[in-house]
């Protein structure tokens, strides 16, 4: 793999950039692999990368039915944070933050990891109590998450201008300095380039249509490019978890729900922090390096595979945004889209063996992008060694049969 650097850029400038190598090959799939990863997003490609790097497994293939990073990796709001309630969640998400911070150097591919900090407004005593609970749990695991007053909020967010008679006045905020933004496409491309360089076959436009089993064990996968034999299959298909798992005869505790996001036209830098107006529909916003204000909210209120959302979600979140940033009234909505979340019953990721030996599942849940490196790291460990990595030990499917849920939200509310 030719290393990227300023000098490489300068060298190639002399020859009109005609000599850049391919980021990854487009090989024909071999008939047999040691492991096959279904899904060419951040999780799938990362898993393949770590299988090769940490576990010496390079006879691995990633099958992507569309184009790399075309699923949720290309549809999220680029936020990476670790403010969670439960002891099982915080270390796992902290690991993700740690990995992200070193990932540009490790992959020799600039992911533009920008440590912006996240400010979540306190607008009621109930939110204050949950924020304190989070702060304390995270404090135990060395993750900084502290309460700040309105003066510090104004200092960090100069454009902060809440209307005087806010329905839920902002009395303060809770702040995670390490929360970051990462260029989402670059995560998929960086992992793809790294995995390809280590011998992993990345096959686009290759849809898995069936999973073949013999006496319970996995023997291979059927694809639109023929049968591929493999003893181990790792599923990382955000939004289609139920569809693929059903091929192996497995039902999962997830519901596919649209999560929308949208951006404004690009403007000069005006907002450094990631801001969460939690009590107003869970609205959050930030400004990308390209100058677009990126905004999102909770899921649409019903299951869907349509990868497009319903408009009232954007209206509610815009109303909320304008309560705190009224100067954005004359900014314009440029583009809106939706990803598909495999929303688990308790809202936490699922990295797990299944009842079918050789078939492993990585269901990202609501925060797929923020957990990409940690999920890939621990999923590779699970696939290579057939036993969970300590960080993901409590995130298996067995938590549902044992009733030890990792309750971070999810669909349990409306059951």
């Amino acid at each position, binding site marked *: 793999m030719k290393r990227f650097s300023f000098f490489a850029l300068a060298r190639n400038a002399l020859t009109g950039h005609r000599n850049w190598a391919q980021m990854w090959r487009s090989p024909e799939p071999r008939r047999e692999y040691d492991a096959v990863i279904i899904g060419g997003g951040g999780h799938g490609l990362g898993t393949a990368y770590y299988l090769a790097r940490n576990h010496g497994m390079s006879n691995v293939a990633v099958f992507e039915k569309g184009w790399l990073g075309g699923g949720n990796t290309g549809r999220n709001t680029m936020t990476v944070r670790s403010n969670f309630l439960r002891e099982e969640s915080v270390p796992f998400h902290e690991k993700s933050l740690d990995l992200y911070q070193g990932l540009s150097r490790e992959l020799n591919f600039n992911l533009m990891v920008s440590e912006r900090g996240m400010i979540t407004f306190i607008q009621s005593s109930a939110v204050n109590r949950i924020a304190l609970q989070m702060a304390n749990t995270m404090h135990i695991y060395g993750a900084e998450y502290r309460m700040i007053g309105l003066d510090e909020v104004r200092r960090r967010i100069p454009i902060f201008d809440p209307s005087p008679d806010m329905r839920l006045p902002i009395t303060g905020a809770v702040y995670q300095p390490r929360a970051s933004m990462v260029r989402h496409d670059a995560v998929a491309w960086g992992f793809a380039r790294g995995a390809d360089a280590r011998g992993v076959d990345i096959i686009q436009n290759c849809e898995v249509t069936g999973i073949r089993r013999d006496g319970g064990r996995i023997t291979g996968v059927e694809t639109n490019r023929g049968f591929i034999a493999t003893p181990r299959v790792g599923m990382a298909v955000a939004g289609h978890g*139920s569809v693929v798992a059903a091929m192996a005869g497995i*039902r999962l*505790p997830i519901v596919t729900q649209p999560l929308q996001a949208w951006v404004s036209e690009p403007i000069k830098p005006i907002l450094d922090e990631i801001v969460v107006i939690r009590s107003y529909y869970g609205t959050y916003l930030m400004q990308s390096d390209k100058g677009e204000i990126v905004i999102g909210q909770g899921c649409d*209120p019903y299951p*869907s595979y349509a990868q497009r959302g*319903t408009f*009232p979600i954007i209206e509610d979140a815009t109303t909320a945004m304008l309560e705190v940033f009224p100067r954005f009234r004359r900014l314009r909505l440029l583009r809106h889209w939706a990803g598909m979340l495999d929303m688990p019953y308790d809202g936490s990721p699922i990295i797990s063996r299944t009842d079918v030996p050789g078939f492993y599942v990585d269901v990202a849940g609501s925060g797929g992008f923020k957990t990409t490196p940690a999920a890939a790291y621990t999923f590779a460990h699970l696939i290579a060694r057939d036993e969970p990595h300590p960080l993901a030990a409590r995130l298996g499917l067995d938590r*549902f049969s044992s009733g030890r849920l990792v309750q971070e939200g999810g669909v349990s509310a409306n059951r």
Partner: protein
Amino acid sequence: MLLIPCPWCGACNENEFICGGESDRKRPTDPAAVDDKTWTDYLYNSTNHKGMTGEWWWHVHGCGKWFTIRRDTVTHCIESAPGDQT
């Protein structure tokens, strides 16, 4: 913004309703008699079908009735399913 065909009120916007989830999810008639595995599947798992699927909807701001429809979870095309009306 879905237009949900309520049997009593007619077609109304989705924000007048609450989606009650898959209608093929039947609570065991005698939960005490089922083993833990079956109960765990009923409690947490979903078919989560990609395509035409039966759903409960509750017209909370209208007639207050629960009813089922069949909706395609990809195209959002809706066929109201007679029979399960209340």
